[in-house]
């Protein structure tokens, strides 16, 4: 099986939500999916989206699936607010424009909040989508065998003919990136834009990422950015690898400006605590950050750096290699 995979560079993600909305207008603005964000960006640290997903179980414990919880619509996902435009703007009233039902949560509820104490507070943006795992807990959990992984690209799909909406997959996913569609009565999730990929166009969230943070190529394509960043340079790491699902979305961990000492003097330690980053990205995060810092220093001295040139991505098209023959891909027609 080949695996199409993604690297998201958290130093280039600017939290703008363009990916979120590219995905929304491509797939989830209709048909009972309105509340879903197959791709979203949350601010870390935080409870995230759906709320408290990190404590909602799922994933593997050895070869056993760990129990998981179903997120609630209003409290954990957030009801997709509709607004009283007609009443507020075209009728005699003093009422403000507001959600018809007050929002309790949302995909970006904690935007720019983070943690820490001023002036040493910290945050970064964490874009999340289905990880198209190599060992998907959702797939194993489905009593209908409706979930499968495609041989040609490793994309994990929920067969919309077979699914009966039992939602075992929703609970089993440790990333809580599967959603139950109340209109169709089936579960749905990120499909890695396979209809775009099949036409030679990268997934909407990646191709339309204005921060140029996302690379897409086959893991075994030695010329592709994903292989080079993940396997050669080891600067891209899976999120919460301890869940055992072997994700195929990888993250370049975030750098941060130094914290200030008690006297207000900038120190030499990044303000993002490294143990916190290790919890998210595993022990490889230390070497990954050290590699990035050393390579940036080289660049600063005017020397070449292969890994930074990949991350810089001089041409947008270089970030994507979708052609199964391993040739240049990425400039599709969609």
């Amino acid at each position, binding site marked *: 099986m080949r695996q199409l995979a993604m690297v998201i560079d958290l130093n280039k993600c600017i939290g703008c939500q363009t990916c979120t909305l590219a995905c929304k207008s*491509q797939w989830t603005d209709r048909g009972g999916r309105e509340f879903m964000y197959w791709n979203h960006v949350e601010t870390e640290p935080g409870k995230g989206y759906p709320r408290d997903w990190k404590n909602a179980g799922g994933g593997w414990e050895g070869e056993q699936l760990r129990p998981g919880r179903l997120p609630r619509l209003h409290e954990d996902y957030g009801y997709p607010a509709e607004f009283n435009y007609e009443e507020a703007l075209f009728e005699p009233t003093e009422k*403000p424009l507001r959600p018809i039902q007050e929002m309790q949560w949302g995909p970006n*509820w904690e935007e720019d909040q983070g943690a820490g104490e001023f002036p040493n507070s910290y945050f970064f943006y964490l874009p999340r989508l289905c990880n198209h795992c190599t060992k998907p807990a959702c797939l194993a959990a489905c009593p209908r065998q409706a979930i499968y992984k495609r041989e040609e690209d490793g994309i994990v799909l929920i067969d919309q003919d077979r699914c009966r909406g039992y939602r075992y997959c929703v*609970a089993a996913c440790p990333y809580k990136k599967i959603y139950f569609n109340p209109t169709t009565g089936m579960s749905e999730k990120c499909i890695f834009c396979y*209809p775009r990929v099949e036409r030679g166009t990268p997934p909407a969230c990646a191709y339309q990422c204005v921060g140029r943070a996302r690379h897409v190529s086959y893991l075994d394509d030695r010329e592709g950015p994903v292989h080079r960043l993940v396997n050669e340079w080891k600067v891209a790491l899976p999120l919460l690898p301890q869940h055992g699902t072997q994700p195929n979305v990888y993250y370049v961990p975030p750098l941060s400006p130094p914290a200030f000492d008690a006297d207000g003097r900038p120190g030499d330690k990044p303000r993002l605590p490294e143990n916190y980053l290790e919890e998210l990205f595993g022990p490889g995060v230390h070497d990954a950050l050290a590699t990035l810092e050393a390579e940036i220093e080289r660049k600063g001295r005017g020397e070449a750096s292969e890994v930074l040139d990949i991350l810089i991505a001089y041409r947008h098209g270089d970030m994507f290699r979708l052609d199964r023959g391993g040739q240049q891909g990425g400039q599709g027609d969609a």
Partner: protein
Amino acid sequence: MDRREFLKGTGYCGLALMFGGPLTALAVNNPAQAAAAAARGDRAWEALYREELLGTLGDAQGFAFHCSNCQGNCAWKVYARDGVVTREEQVAGYPQIHPRIPDANPRGCNKGIIHSKEMYQGDRLLYPLKRGGERGKGQWQRITWEQAFEEIAEKVVETLDEKGLEALMVYTGTGILSQGRRAGPLRLGALLGAQRMYPASAVGDMFTGASLAYGVTNIGHSLDAWFEAKTIFLWAMNPIVTRIPDAHYLTEARYNGARIYTITPDYNPSARSATDWVPVRPGTDAYLAMSLLHVLLRDNHIDEAFVREQTDLPFLVRTDTGELLRHRDLRPRGRDNVFYAWDEAADRAVPMPGTAGHHRETLRLGDIRPALGGTFEVQGRDGETIEVTTVLERVRAEAARYPPEETREITGVHPELVERMAADLAGAERAIINIGFAMHKYVSGTMTCWAAALACALTGHAGDRGGLDTENNWSLGGLGDLSNPKPARFGSGFFTEWLNGDMEKSMRRHYPDEHLRKTAGYDSDDVRRHVEEKKALGTSYFGRPSALLLFADNMFRRNKDESHYRETMLSGLDIFVNINHRMDSTALWADYVLPAKSHYESWDIRGELGYHRYCNITVPPKGLAPVGETRSEWEICLGLARAIARAAKQRGIEQIADPDFLEQEGDMAAPVIRDLARLEEDFTLGGTLPDDEAVVRWIMENVPAIAPWTPEDGAKHGFVILNEQAGYTSPLAANRPYYSFERNVYLREPYSTESGRQQFFVDHPTFRKLGCTVPTAMGPLRPPSFPLAFYTPHTRHGIHSQWRGNQELLRLQRGEPYIWLNPNTAAERGIGEDDPVRVFNDVGEFHCKVKLVPGVPPGAVVMDHAWEPYQFRKRLGLNNAVAGVLSLVELVDDWGHLTFSPNWDGNMIAFETSVEVERSDGGVQ
């Protein structure tokens, strides 16, 4: 069909029933399924999502950009099916300019990407509306376009006839800044002699510090230049949020080894992306700037050759009067604008070539070697001895007052950080200081920006070595005949708004005179006096209008002392017509609301924005169905022109002479004639400009910077590339980023200043009175009567108020306005996360929610600006608690390059207000 039926619905009933049960724990253990399922063959169902993709790709494709005040200017593909837009996606086809500079793809952000939702959203204006009841009461009657045109025209003609041409204001706000769509209202207003404000100043986006230094307010580089820089200061600027399409050049610059200092009071997204965050206290930036100068001068980080030739730092200053030494000081009937330096070679004062009054229009010094320091004596015109020193000596003396160890108490910035910033600025081959639009929202912003310009000058950062960047704009010469066929009454923005809205009241209420004198060096009476002097010049203010045709401007949202401004403005208006694509907080109060097309619905072109070199073209998808009865601005202006001509003829005033403007006819000067009877013919240029497509074609044919591209090229790619003529102060080279001032630095052409150089000494009486003849520090003006500093940076989720009410974007926020508070500041007031609060002071109040953000400094209230007032309780927006104070320096007029023009006007000061916050009951009415 009513409004609701027309607009695309997203019915979502019943969803709640499917969720909301108790938490459910589910698990099965069936790992063996993995292998079995992977091998399956039956995948016909996958056609489902393939069909959906085809659905979004539609049956027609056009191109568009979003012509609002974001300056991003990004080319998009727009897909439509059955005449309805289905989706948009960035073109992502801009060519790379050089293999070592990252390309500009895919330009386009979270706002652009949801415009297809916005254009069919419930706030969209669909039909011409006429007010039924009182203004602002929401009682609308649908009328026909013909009725609207006829009634408006009659009132306009009556106004022109009875109250004069200046009683009509035709103002196009920053909701439309593209050359195509903006042309209609500009042209109509110019033909009528209507007054028009300067938008950059009305919204407070002037960089007066840059104007002082260069005589030009918009200067800098194309933003790909970030990638080449080794030191970058982002000062009062949050480009990770506000320059989304170009932000990658910053993150990529960091990977390229750049040191990036983000100077901002809160730990914002741009601070997080920087190598260093400089946590300056709100409004104290000028002290930090002076400390930077202090270190640069102390350590002699001075590019002497650059400073001698390119700046006024060697110019001589009289020690007796504190004024520059001028020709008239030395010769009877001498000139005012010839200045001197001390020539070390000849050991005497010599007039400097290139100054405004000098016959040699070059910066080339020849044999002159201007002294940078020292005290000298010259003989005055009456034989007296005049002691003189240099501007640099004055700068040194001023900067000496601000060692970083001492300013630290004010700014909160550690001296080590200041030292390192100065060293990195001086040591970088290419360094850039970006000044954001937030800087001049403080009165001290002028000084901070001027000092930053001086820091660049001392270290020789100009031309392709970088330097100051406010915002580069391109030169689209050739547009004049289209937008200004006759002279318009072009007025100051900030000044007009301040007077029209009677903001003096809130200034006097919020700022005790004693406090103003202490912090700013002037008081409210001084402001009043200077306002009267400026008014008396008659060049930048034309009185409160009694007829207002307002295009895409949200003046009741953006102006200070919000509700008083609105009431004052409305009280003077006999007719208020609002033309917009959506119902905004200003349109709510109009007499007539005319529905305009929005970004995808008519041909358009935009190319003046200097962040990149691409000129984007809008070509609607074939067969796009009109949204309601909307018309383009050009069509609306044409309808108005036709109706005004008819009404004028009926009234018997076919022509109005306008003696304020003279037209040369042979040897004779005659008043400009406002030919109302011919308005339609003049508007359409004798019928050659019937519609938006014709306008775009005219622009592409007449603007030299667009050559050789044709409308067909634009329609094929969605954009064309500007040529080298697009640069104002440098040529725009095809294969490298653009930098300002190459013509000055390399060709020695004088700058557009009185000194002909980068200017750091201004001896206008106001500057002398305030003690700021050279850049100096100045603190925040906010009064101590309320404990919290209130500032309102640009938001990620809107371009000012555009898209602020967008459903998709509000779902990515919290659905309603909120302030940001430091958790400690909130706790002291018993306020918790997401609590409702009342924000208030002696100007007014507003209600909203709270978001606790540890990156916000204690003692500050931060709020994304430009929420629509109609999103707040009682529809009172955040400017209801902001006072309308003015900067005395920005009231200077009629002095050299400080004379009202697009390069010299002032700002609506927005960040100098104090507030208090308390928990509220959370009601909405």
